[in-house]
């Protein structure tokens, strides 16, 4: 496949992924209503299932209107009335109606980045060596068999994670049948702290995680490809990348995050800090820098680590050795570990989110642990595993299509 085709496909996938991620953040104010004639006011059925944007706008409010009075209730719950009367129970708050798009956005960004990385490397190879020398002549095996093999591995790991969740739920005293039913209907119940469904909480927070992770991951991987290409031939760049791993270790993303808050928020007053409500962009900058800065070094270094020495074969030009053989072989290693890189960055992002109060999965998990809400912790564990396993499956399949050698 031509490098230009891969790069255009990558840009298309990345744009689509980021548009979907941005759309999943879209929020609107809604009212869910229930009415009846009784001495007990019941909230609307399944009001917990809406994608309430609780981390950004707080819990939904409850208002009960009777012919004689209007009652504002702190928590949405069953409310006893003084007499049998007509009532209207209104639950109002902000929802993210397209929150379910967030996982799709994340996978599109991953695929786009994967294809883009391959395309960028191929572009540099073809620019130096020409189209003919860049072509591969590898013979592949059956893609179908390869897919089945990968899918069986995916199923096995998914089964194990379900088993772990069942075990944890059982230890918390939940009946086995309810746990199984919950897992297979994607309904993990309601959060004890927020009072709304775990699915809703996980998807709404994943929207914020997706946009931040999507931008930082694509940017990091794309730029690390450029850095490595120049680093292989330039000793100074190579040396800087080599030392960067120490900076990455010492200045972990979250340490860097706090330094940025001191520098850019408290001292220079350049960027705001906290939960974004209206204008997202200014709030996005600091978390983005704190993820990008350590990881660009870590990724480039991982790439260069596999290209430590350029072999010296008589008769072959240095360019051919570097661009066809060294970079070619290193690309295989890096592409096969790109989904692990995404998961590694997702973990770092969870740490950073807690620091910046960015309303993503990390912030949700933090609140859950602080208040002992084990159901949210399990929900995050399931979505985290689903992202990890699906990312592996997607990159394996795309890799199988782009490089048929692995299907043998």
């Amino acid at each position, binding site marked *: 496949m031509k490098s230009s085709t891969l790069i255009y496909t990558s840009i298309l996938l990345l744009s689509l992924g980021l548009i979907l991620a941005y759309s999943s953040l879209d929020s609107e104010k809604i009212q869910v209503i229930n009415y009846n004639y009784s001495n007990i006011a019941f909230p609307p059925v399944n009001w917990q299932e809406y994608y309430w944007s609780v981390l950004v706008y707080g819990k939904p409010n409850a208002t009960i209107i009777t012919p004689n009075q209007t009652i504002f209730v702190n928590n949405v719950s069953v409310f006893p009335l003084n007499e049998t009367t007509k009532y209207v129970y209104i639950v109002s708050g902000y929802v993210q109606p397209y929150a379910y798009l967030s996982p799709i956005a994340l996978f599109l960004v991953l695929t786009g980045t994967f294809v883009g990385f391959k395309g960028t490397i191929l572009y540099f190879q073809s620019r130096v060596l020409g189209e003919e020398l860049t072509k591969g002549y590898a013979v592949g095996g059956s893609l179908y068999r390869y897919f089945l093999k990968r899918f069986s591995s995916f199923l096995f790991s998914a089964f194990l994670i379900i088993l*772990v969740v069942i075990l944890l739920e059982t230890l918390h005293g939940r009946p086995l049948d309810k746990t199984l039913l919950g897992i297979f209907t994607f309904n993990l119940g309601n959060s004890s702290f927020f009072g709304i469904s775990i699915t809703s909480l996980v998807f709404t927070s994943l929207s914020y995680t997706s946009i931040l992770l999507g931008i930082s991951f694509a940017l990091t991987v794309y730029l690390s490809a450029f850095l490595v290409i120049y680093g292989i031939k330039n000793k100074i760049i190579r040396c800087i990348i080599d030392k960067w791993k*120490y900076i990455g270790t010492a200045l972990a993303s979250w340490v860097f995050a*706090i*330094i940025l808050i001191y520098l850019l928020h408290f001292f220079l007053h350049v960027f705001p800090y906290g939960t974004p409500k209206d204008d997202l962009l200014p709030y996005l900058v600091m978390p983005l820098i704190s993820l990008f800065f350590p990881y660009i070094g870590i990724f480039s270094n991982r790439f260069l680590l596999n290209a430590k020495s350029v072999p010296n074969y008589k008769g072959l030009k240095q360019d051919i050795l570097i661009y066809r053989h060294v970079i070619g072989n290193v690309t295989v290693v890096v592409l096969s570990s790109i989904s692990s890189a995404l998961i590694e960055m997702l973990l770092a992002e969870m740490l950073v989110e807690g620091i910046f109060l960015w309303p993503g999965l990390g912030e949700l998990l933090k609140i859950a*642990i602080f208040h*002992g809400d084990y159901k949210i912790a399990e929900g995050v*564990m399931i979505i985290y595993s689903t992202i990890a396993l699906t990312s592996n499956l997607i990159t394996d399949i795309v890799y199988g299509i782009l490089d048929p050698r692995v299907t043998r």
Partner: protein
Amino acid sequence: MIRLYITLGILISLTVISIFLDVYELPAGRPLTPPNPHYPLGTYINGQNMININAEAIVNTLLFGSIVGILETVLSVSYGTVAGILGGKIRTAMVRIIDSINSIPRLPFLLSIALFYGIPTGVSLKANFFLTALIVGLTGWPLYARQIAETIYSNSINFSFRRIVNNIPIRVGFRILGWKQEIHLIVPSIIDGISTYTAMGVIGGVGDPNFPTLTTLLNTASHLIPDWWLFLIPAIFRGILLIILQILAEEIRRI
């Protein structure tokens, strides 16, 4: 070799000085006093000298890392050696088990377990230091066990035992493994222990008030961001400690 001795010397010095300053109490002052000539690193929220606080945190951080490091090394070497020695289908099954355990997301899993024995306070999760070290150690070994199993297996493929009965005697397994492998593993395991505890601390506020680590200090600082010395100094010590350990791991690998 010189780099190894220098790094080791710095680590030992840092540990000895920290143990001394953990025991020897320096004068306390008004809570949250910024660094000044009387209190070069400032004072903590309880007025204690930040030199003592940081020293105690370094000792506890190293203690946590060491417990996890020893546990992970013992478990991974035992499991990996058995898998490598036995070979055949048993090895395949044992490696498959390792891969499956590795596919469980470690951090959310650890936090879910910590909720069983920890006490949520609304701003943190008070969790016993040693129990946390135990669960971190018990979940971190599979990655290293796989390396051990592969090392023993790949280095014994041409042995006659392996060819005839598909396994090798225990003593041969240990001879292949050698003492270096254990030494190679221990420092990365310590780093793994410290990093994982840090991640648990940053995301879930997991910590033990009786055994404050550098992460505990950083967590406290995250609620008092304008008091920069509460954050910056433990962050510098944490950075130095991790860089020393990383250089040490690299140098040991080179021996």
